[in-house]
């Protein structure tokens, strides 16, 4: 595993503090969406289809910082839209880093090289550039519906690493993907020199135009077992080993929808990053008035039945790691041996 020790320590102490305070529901990663605009239009993306006047809007840096403070999570992930289209991305990241918040800037990397050349971002142990990579070469281009994006992203990754940035990749695996190709992809990402990879199965958004290309739960376990059962020793993952074991069907977790709360133009999104069932105007209102029992696998909610995505289950994995001896032992063993 590749999460730096300082980050692991921050998360571990945060989780333990919550436990000591008797807080059972707490956020781990704020999903902060300053805008919905994107310079790509990937099929299956439920994030960008809005009227033009909505796409033109964006949060102010002050609104973003207030949300981060209100939420109090030790990690802020900035997905989108494409965050590098946000004119104030440099100031936003700088302010979050100054608050010692770990930031994952999730980008398709089309603009990354330019932004780096302009000095918009500065390397920091608190900042990780998380580059969207859904496969090798044409496979990635096909997933993002534009040719040449893979090569652009690879150049940008080289440049970011040369400049001393932490770089990770985030990959969504869609139905029908060839596990051997994914293994080759993992080798290639490690060859690029990234700090670690993040993987998650796709989800059929209720509002996405494309439903048929997402993984169903059982098939997903089989797929992830084939990919991860004998991991190459060089592979590093920037996510909890217990989450990867969950993907393989070796851990039986329930979703923690409040673990990665989402804030965007519309407010605090209920109940999670994927489902848009309404918005609360404050974080407290989100936590106190969302009917959490209606979500997750055990709820029987159709929308949750096949879901295994990281934003719902990674917080469960992290909670399990630091709240049970068995969880801690499994995570430590996986980290030390590289075996999942």
């Amino acid at each position: 595993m590749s999460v730096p020790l300082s980050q692991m320590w921050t998360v571990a102490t945060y989780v333990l503090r919550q436990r000591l305070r008797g807080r059972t529901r707490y956020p781990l990663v704020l999903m902060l969406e300053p805008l919905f605009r994107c310079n790509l239009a990937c099929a299956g993306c439920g994030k960008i289809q809005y009227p033009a006047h909505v796409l033109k809007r964006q949060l102010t840096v002050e609104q973003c910082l207030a949300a981060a403070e209100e939420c109090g999570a030790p990690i802020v992930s900035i997905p989108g839209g494409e965050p590098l289209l946000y004119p104030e991305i440099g100031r936003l990241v700088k302010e979050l880093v100054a608050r010692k918040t770990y930031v994952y800037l999730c980008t398709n990397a089309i603009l990354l090289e330019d932004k780096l050349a302009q000095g918009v971002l500065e390397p920091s142990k608190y900042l990780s550039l998380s580059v969207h990579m859904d496969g090798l070469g044409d496979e990635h281009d096909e997933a993002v519906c534009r040719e040449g994006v893979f090569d652009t992203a690879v150049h940008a990754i080289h440049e970011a690493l040369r400049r001393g940035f932490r770089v990770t990749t985030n990959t969504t695996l869609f139905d029908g993907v060839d596990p051997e190709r994914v293994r080759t992809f993992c080798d290639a990402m490690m060859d690029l020199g990234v700090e670690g990879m993040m993987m998650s199965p796709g989800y059929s958004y209720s509002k996405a135009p494309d439903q048929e290309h997402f993984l169903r739960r059982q098939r997903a376990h089989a797929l992830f077992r084939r990919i991860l059962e004998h991991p190459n020793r060089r592979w590093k993952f920037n996510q909890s080993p217990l989450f990867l074991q969950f993907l393989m069907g070796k851990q039986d977790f329930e979703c923690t929808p409040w673990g990665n709360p989402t804030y965007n133009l519309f407010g605090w999104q209920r109940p999670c990053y994927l489902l848009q069932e309404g918005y609360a105007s404050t974080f407290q209102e989100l936590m106190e008035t969302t009917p959490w029992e209606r979500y997750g696998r055990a709820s029987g909610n159709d929308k949750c039945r096949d879901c295994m995505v990281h934003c719902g289950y990674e917080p469960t994995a992290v909670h399990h790691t630091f709240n049970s001896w068995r969880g801690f032992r499994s995570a430590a063993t996986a980290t030390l041996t590289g075996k999942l």
Partner: protein
Amino acid sequence: MGDDSLQGWAPEPRDADELAHVVDMAFDYRGDVTIVLRDGTERVGYLFNRSRERGQAQLLEPAAAGPVTVRYADIRTIRFTGKDPASGKSYAAWLERKKADKAQTER
């Protein structure tokens, strides 16, 4: 426009239940809608939030800085007037287009 898109739909809800259902559908719709109020005025915008319990919907109008709140009790109906940006954007459609482009260049 996709077959399943609500674009162009102009329902006539007969009671509060049907109206609440139409509001839910407008909330799920990815384009702008026109809210027709009982006093005859119309408000056009993106309906991004609603609460049956509170009997309120929130709308982002194109030129407004912030959202406006509309009470269910004041709404006569909602028309699905804006273009549906989610329609026809599927991965399958993109692959089809790609295949067609390829066939054209090979001809």
